[in-house]
């Protein structure tokens, strides 16, 4: 069971002489196979929520549990075995001077202990090519190119493959289409949806695109001032309109 449970999670960070609360007493249960879209103002605590889950920010109170295991106290590198993340900046998720194939190969060992065995690039080439072809944006033909030569859309598609090729218990998408043009953004969103539903992944997706938040996913939550202020399950989400959601931002 890849269930994510946040139990009364609070995140405080020191800012100059005072303490700022970024996440306040958040309790949230994400069930296995849930695809949750996360909306909220800038500074509402969306990225903090992700950082608390990945361990990039320490929680000041409460517990984070994934698949029955408490994550508190585990370093981000340890949690990487179970949690994959795609960032807004396409440069964040890939190694620029390594080729597409090398990046994919490395991601196939996510969370594993790296050994002194040969990386076996040639033996895996066909499998990697097949995987890259899923993106339909020329990534398969760029297998031996350094990723710095890819377009933003190709890089983000690659990040997505790298995050999901070794199935994570939890996939975190942090505005992963925000830096792309509208057309590319849509194709990455469709690829995302395909991967998440095909692999039945448990996924949280931060977005500022209200349309995407409504169209994709099985559940929608809204954060404000470090708290979950609205939570719509599949049924109620289906009945939501753009105006309903925009009302939260007024």
């Amino acid at each position, binding site marked *: 069971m890849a269930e994510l449970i946040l139990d009364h999670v609070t995140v405080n960070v020191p800012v100059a002489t005072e303490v700022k609360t970024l996440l306040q007493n958040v309790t949230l249960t994400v069930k296995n196979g849930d695809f949750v879209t996360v909306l909220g103002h800038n500074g509402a605590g969306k990225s903090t929520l992700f950082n608390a889950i990945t361990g990039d920010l320490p929680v000041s109170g409460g517990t984070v549990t994934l698949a029955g295991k408490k994550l508190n106290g585990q*370093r*981000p*590198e*340890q949690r*990487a*075995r179970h949690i*994959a*993340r795609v960032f807004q900046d396409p*440069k*964040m*998720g*890939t*190694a*620029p*001077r*390594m080729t597409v194939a*090398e*990046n994919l*190969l*490395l*991601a196939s*060992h*996510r*969370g*594993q202990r*790296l*050994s*002194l*065995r*040969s*990386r076996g*690039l040639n033996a895996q080439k066909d499998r990697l090519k097949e995987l890259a072809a899923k993106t339909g944006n020329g990534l398969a033909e760029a297998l031996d190119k350094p990723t710095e030569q890819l377009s933003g859309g190709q890089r983000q598609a690659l990040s997505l493959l*790298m995050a999901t090729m070794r199935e994570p218990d939890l996939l975190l998408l942090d505005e992963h289409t925000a830096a792309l043009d509208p057309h590319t953004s849509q194709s990455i969103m469709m690829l995302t949806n395909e991967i998440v539903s095909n692999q039945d992944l448990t996924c949280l997706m931060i977005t500022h695109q209200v349309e995407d938040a409504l169209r994709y996913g099985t559940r929608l939550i809204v954060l404000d001032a470090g708290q979950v202020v609205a939570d719509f399950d599949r049924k109620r989400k289906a009945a939501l309109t753009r105006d309903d959601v925009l009302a939260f931002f007024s």
Partner: protein
Amino acid sequence: MSLGVSAIGQGLLYGLIGLGLFLTFRVLDFPDMTVEGTFPFGAAVAVSAITHGISPIVATLLATGAGMLAGLATGLLTTKGRIPVLLAGILVMTGLFSINLRIMGRANLSLLHQANLFQESFLKDLPPYFNSVVIGLVVAVVVVGLLILFLNTQLGQGFIAAGDNPNMARSLGIDPDHQMVLGLMVGNGLVGLAGGLLAQNNGYADVNMGIGVIVIGLAAIIIGEVVFGELTLSQRLVAVILGSILYRFVLLVVLALGFNADDLKLISAVVLAIAIMVPQIDHQLRLRRVLQKGVQVHG
């Protein structure tokens, strides 16, 4: 003739410093100042070991191990102590100065009338200076070969990724700190090895022999890049060795022009500065093409 042979031998041996620095400067992306202490450290350990009756081969291995310890010290200071890596390297380098004096008991220790690797019996019949070419070549081939093998393992790929994009490495479960310590240990191990070998080749170790060593190593890397241009990672390692040899010939030319050996450090710095600036000037002057032509004609 013998000057050229000597330059090739020295270039091969100094090339090890370039290889060590390549791991930190090019793969992990910072200049490791530790090497200025590691180089005499390796020399001091090797020479002292030999004067205490230890075989030259074991003494050379001890120099390598000593270099790795120095790299470990810098690595722990920067990853656990959170000291900026440049400063951590300077601290270790400074501390090693005293350690080197302690090891040798004085500022300069000679290998006169002692056995050393370059006087092994199978090298006896070679013309002058060919012993350093043979040993330099063997060591360079072995080291480059091992590095290429390592960089193509799973761990080696993780090491490259940690230098290329630490955030991405972390998100894949690779701890960039571990990779940094690994890079510093292997890099300084090679510099310690270079110190141990060059001390035996020169016949002495001196506490001041580390001054400017980082410039020599970086010059090998950058001259190799400027002359040979776009290469694969494995080819770049070979280019470092060739760059190191070219750098020795540049020094020969400079000395032939009538400069004094006292001027060498200044000239080293100027050569490196020019080599680093070449890619920027290249756009305007197409200098790289001219240099490549020069190499093809003479080489």
